[in-house]
């Protein structure tokens, strides 16, 4: 009997499942509505159905890979647990004060400070103090820790975060605090800042640690339930969770550091992009995942997804290493509106799944990007294989009333305007991860997926000067494929400030060794065989006095005079590329980083069999479709994407309709189906 892997990606609307035969690499897909109240229900339905449809026994499933938004949603929707926090004496308001600023583009007269995930009343001050170089200035007041732990126990606050100043330099007090808490309150779940994020800046480290504690009860309950239910289904496989850095960890590890899964969903998309790019021989690409409410973009250079040291989730900075994904509030459901002063804007307000776009007929009255696509003939009034019927007239009326009339435009120009503004917003996000990081988007392919991505991809590519667009076979469930392509991966970091020129090489080497040992211990825990352990070292560098660092890889295995010189040279070069100048000034090493990974059987995209000998046989229909760069509406062929075989070449204007997504091929562009079913679309 063959063995299988299953990937389950739980999104806001649908739960996508991919089944992969590990012996033949034959893959099949299944989609079921998500169940937001208890996402495990949709997960299990999807799993049962795909096994049943394919006649597979639960015992044949060896690995389950999971992308989850439990942590993400708990944070974004303020639905985490009550958390107790320990901080040093004098710093009870570390979260309340934060960095004492407002976001950059808000008006302080109207801005309202977001409520912190924990109120000051639940933050206990503990006499203790460590200096920036790790010296203990005030010993830990153990009685105070015990007292706080008992209070939390009495008030049933079981998730506790500990964040002491400079704990990256000496974690003894935090570790001891955990021991004491557990003695008083054995059922407590404790998050230590020195484990979650051992780098400097107390507000950022504390909020990240608190968020970890905030989502831990939900994530552990969810994964626990899932494991039990899988056991009940007689599935005896490992359950691995996608993290924000694009790696997977076992569910038992994810439970300890759940905040690392905050970008689990989008990260799976990036890993899918990597897999798609590899299948078509693309080294450099930009992923463009446009869904209903938002669009995620990221950049892959030389087959490596770019990472950053933290972005924001909702109102909070999360300074963990994560894939460099920029998310903007612009998707198919984004609402177009005209302000009192006649300014047309699109998003970030979204019609969401309910009521959804006007054309869905579920009570939506505000025109959306999807409505504009429908009015312009870019999507069919029958979608999802005819399951869903769209109301074109209602969409047109909404655009006429809300956009065209107030602006004095005709209806098509208004609809086209909505698309242009949405595209411009997405171009901005892509420039953000390319131009602003010193990369020219012209050197990259655009890999488009998500329900709406393939409809907008060519317009967006053209605006950026990109002449190579790739649309995978199943754009609507690409992220689930990405889960199958992932490997085990974890990042370890510690702030270890070193001022030039006298770097402490032994000190650096010993920090690296410790981080590496931690990493290897974890790989062993995950059962990753020694021979596939991959270790890489990097460091965050800056010019003395600068406040943000550039992460530079350390070539060579050890910190020696030679490798450190190379590191510094590489820093100068990257600074030049990123910012347009470098300086003849002292360079500081701030934080040392180790990434460990191990590939234990990621799977590649399967090749696609031919289905018909001629693209003409795939033509379903012919209709009028509006294109911006021509004469408006032109008549074009509508193809069934499922009926196109590898090698099929289709010149725009044309529309390829699939089960979960529509590909719009502009005039002047030609699409070629490759061996994996990807559409490779280029000018010509």
């Amino acid at each position: 009997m063959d063995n299988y892997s299953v990937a389950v990606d739980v999104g806001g609307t649908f739960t996508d499942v991919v089944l992969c035969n590990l012996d033949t690499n034959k893959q099949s897909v299944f989609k079921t509505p998500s169940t937001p109240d208890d996402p495990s229900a949709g997960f299990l339905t999807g799993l049962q159905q795909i096994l049943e449809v394919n006649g597979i026994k639960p015992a044949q499933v060896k690995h389950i890979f999971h992308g989850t938004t439990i942590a993400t949603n708990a944070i974004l929707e303020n639905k985490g647990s009550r958390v107790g926090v320990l901080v040093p004496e004098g710093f009870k308001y570390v979260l309340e004060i934060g960095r004492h600023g407002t976001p950059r583009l808000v008006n302080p007269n109207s801005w309202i400070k977001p409520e912190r995930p924990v109120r000051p009343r639940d933050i206990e001050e503990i006499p203790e103090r460590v200096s920036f170089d790790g010296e203990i200035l005030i010993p830990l007041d153990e009685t105070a820790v015990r007292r706080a732990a008992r209070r939390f126990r009495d008030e049933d606050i079981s998730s506790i975060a500990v964040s002491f100043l400079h704990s990256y330099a000496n974690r003894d007090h935090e570790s001891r605090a955990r021991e004491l808490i557990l003695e008083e309150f054995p059922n407590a779940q404790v998050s230590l800042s020195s484990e979650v994020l051992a780098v400097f800046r107390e507000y950022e480290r504390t909020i990240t640690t608190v968020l970890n504690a905030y989502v831990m009860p939900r994530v552990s309950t969810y994964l626990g339930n899932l494991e039990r239910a899988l056991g009940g289904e007689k599935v005896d496989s490992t359950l691995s969770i996608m993290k924000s850095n694009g790696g997977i960890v076992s569910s038992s590890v994810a439970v300890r550091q759940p905040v690392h899964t905050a970008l689990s969903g989008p990260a799976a998309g990036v890993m899918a992009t990597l897999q798609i790019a590899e299948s078509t021989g693309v080294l450099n690409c930009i992923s463009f995942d446009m869904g209903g409410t938002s669009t995620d973009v990221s950049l892959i250079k030389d087959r490596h997804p770019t990472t950053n040291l933290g972005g924001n989730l909702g109102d909070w900075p999360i300074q963990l290493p994560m894939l460099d994904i920029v998310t903007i509030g612009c998707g198919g459901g984004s609402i177009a509106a005209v302000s009192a002063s006649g300014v047309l804007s699109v998003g970030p307000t979204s019609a969401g799944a309910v009521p959804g776009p006007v054309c869905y007929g579920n009570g939506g009255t505000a025109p959306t990007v999807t409505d504009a696509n429908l009015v312009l003939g870019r999507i069919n009034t029958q979608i999802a294989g005819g399951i869903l019927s769209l109301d074109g007239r209602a969409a047109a009326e909404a655009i006429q009333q809300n956009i065209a009339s107030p602006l004095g435009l005709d209806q098509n120009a208004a609809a086209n305007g909505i698309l242009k503004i949405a595209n411009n917003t997405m171009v901005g996000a892509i420039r953000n991860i390319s131009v602003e990081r010193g990369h020219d988007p012209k050197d990259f392919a655009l890999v488009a997926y998500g329900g709406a991505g393939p409809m907008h991809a060519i317009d967006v590519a053209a605006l950026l000067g990109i002449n190579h667009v790739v649309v995978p076979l199943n754009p609507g469930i690409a992220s689930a494929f990405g889960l199958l392509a992932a490997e085990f991966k974890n990042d370890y970091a510690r702030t270890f400030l070193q001022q030039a020129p006298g770097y402490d090489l032994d000190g650096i080497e010993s920090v690296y060794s410790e981080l590496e040992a931690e990493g290897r211990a974890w790989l062993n825990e995950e059962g990753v065989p020694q021979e596939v352990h991959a270790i890489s070292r990097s460091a965050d560098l800056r010019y003395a006095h600068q406040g943000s660092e550039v992460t530079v890889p350390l070539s060579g295995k050890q910190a020696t005079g030679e490798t450190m010189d190379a590191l510094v040279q590489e820093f100068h070069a990257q600074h030049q590329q990123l910012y347009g100048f470098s300086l003849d000034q002292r360079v500081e090493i701030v934080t040392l980083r180790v990434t460990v990974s191990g590939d234990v059987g990621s799977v590649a995209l399967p090749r696609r069999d031919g289905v018909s000998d001629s693209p003409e046989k795939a033509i379903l229909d012919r209709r009028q479709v509006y294109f911006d760069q021509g004469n408006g509406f032109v008549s074009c062929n509508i193809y069934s994407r499922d009926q196109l075989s590898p090698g099929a070449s289709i010149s725009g204007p044309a529309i390829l309709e699939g089960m979960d997504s529509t590909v719009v091929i502009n005039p002047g562009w030609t699409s070629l189906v490759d061996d994996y079913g990807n559409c490779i679309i280029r000018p010509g």
Partner: protein
Amino acid sequence: MTTFRQDEQATGRSDGYAAVDPVTRQLIRGSLRAAKLECELIIERTAMSAFIREKKDYTVSFLDARGHEIYGDTMGSDIMGCVWQYYPEETINQGDVYWYNDPYISQGSITHTPDMVFISPVFHEGAVVAYCHSFAHFWDLGGSRPGSIGPANTEIFHDGTLVPPIKIIDRGELNDEAYRIILRNSRYPDLLEGDSKALMAAAQRAQERLLEMFDRYGNQTMLAAIEQDQRDTAALVRRKALEIIPEGDYSVRDYMDHSGVEDRWYSFHLQLSRRGDHIVLDTTLSDDQADGSINFVASPGTLGAYFGQHFHQYDPSLLSNSGLVESIDEVKLRPGSILLPEWPAALGCRAHTFTKLKSAVRAVLAQATDGQVMAGTAVYVIVYWRMKDDTGQWLLCTDGIAVGHGARPFADGLDAIYQRHNENYPGEFMEMEFPLRMERYAIVPDSGGAGKFRGGCGVIRDVRLLADIGTFGLRVENNRFPTWGVAGGMGGGTSRVVMNPGTGQEKAIRAFSDDNTWSRGDLVRIYTAGGGGWGDPLEREPHLVNDDVKDGFVTLEAALRDYGVVINPVTLKTDEPGTEAKRKDISSSRGPTKLFHRFNYFDTADEEYEWINEHFPR
């Protein structure tokens, strides 16, 4: 008296462009916003002084060929006027970068010397079509003490080295000689070099981005879209001004604690008058210029923009641009007054005056709208920690500290915010970089003015010196005069500074002062002021008062005294019948509230002026 008419400044609108369709206009607005953010990020990531990179005191703005703002944060300043005085337009070349910090030559487009601007012209089809301008507050360039500006300065030369408009980059070539002179004048030339390089890179990147936009959308379309945006913003603020301000006269006065030199307060006076559709702002009854550094070189554009910014909030979909200045018709300033000081008055600590001026704009409008404005916001705080390191070098840590902001008709004031998007130094950063230890960073209970909506609270910051010797300068306002509350809301709490609190060596330090000495082991505690409240505190929901008590923003005593909320000190439960009775009691003994509150309830500026003269004689 300088009278200035906005319609004269608004130069002849060309009217020569065809209307641009609303879609293209929005594409252009989106591209401008993205370009601004991108260039500002360059500054944030590459600047060296902590003031810029941690505190984030920087901006990038775009101006049209007439020097009028396309989009940005220049707030009505005439950035280009003084450049053209030295470099007539026809001498400006592609690849040039201009630099200045001179408040007097620029007539207040820069208001104190640490603020530096770098300007890069945008050439398209052979002519200047726009200017890009990066701006930041620099660490140190000359002046009396590390950090240049400071509370004790009495003339502009103490505030630092003046850079009149110069061409620092000439067609791509750095003017190395001028650059050497300027770097030589800083105590920290590495920082100055890093910061100025970052600002030049940002201005040049901005220039590239604008050029790309002119290429993409076309010269005429860009120019027309820019002009239409300026007109739309102007029309909005004008319309709102006429809607909101009834005919009549509205005046307010606010008070600065101290000039930094002589121990007396100063005040400014604003009178807004509307006759028909003509709106005039008259500041001429303000005090004469101060002997210290709190003078503010106001310009009609700046004051106009303060009002414009208030009206702009009614439709933030429009760009913030030169149109902001057009809500009022005329601004009267008196040379020699604290709002238009004469050379060579010191200007370094002008934030005391202009922060109160920004609040005062709302106080004027409060009279026109029956209090539907945000209450007074405290003046954000700067402390200059200076210390000698082991090698005998003087180190400087310029520390920006948060205050409480005014309550709004719809929400509490912001607790612990500096101003806008500027950020504080993490304690871990301070301790790593300087021989200082931060020992407390907390909320000051009861500093937020009581109200239906509470004013924002100020903060406590405790800093201990770990070097042998040091000095410190304090730019702390609202020590004598707190923020005002409105619509029944009460004034905020005051600031204060104390050294070694709770020890035998405890000593009060003057809030606005310099050259205070401290030595190893001394600890300085700063309490910053809170914002004013909005609405009658007796109308605040008791459960919100209870929350504030549990979280330490309001004490039990103040809950009872100001809000009439009775809370059991042990269980922290609210006694509801007790609260009802207490509130009736306060209401009858207090009488009705008035429009403003600071020390007492009052309705007019004259009423308060009389009270203050009596209780704080000069």
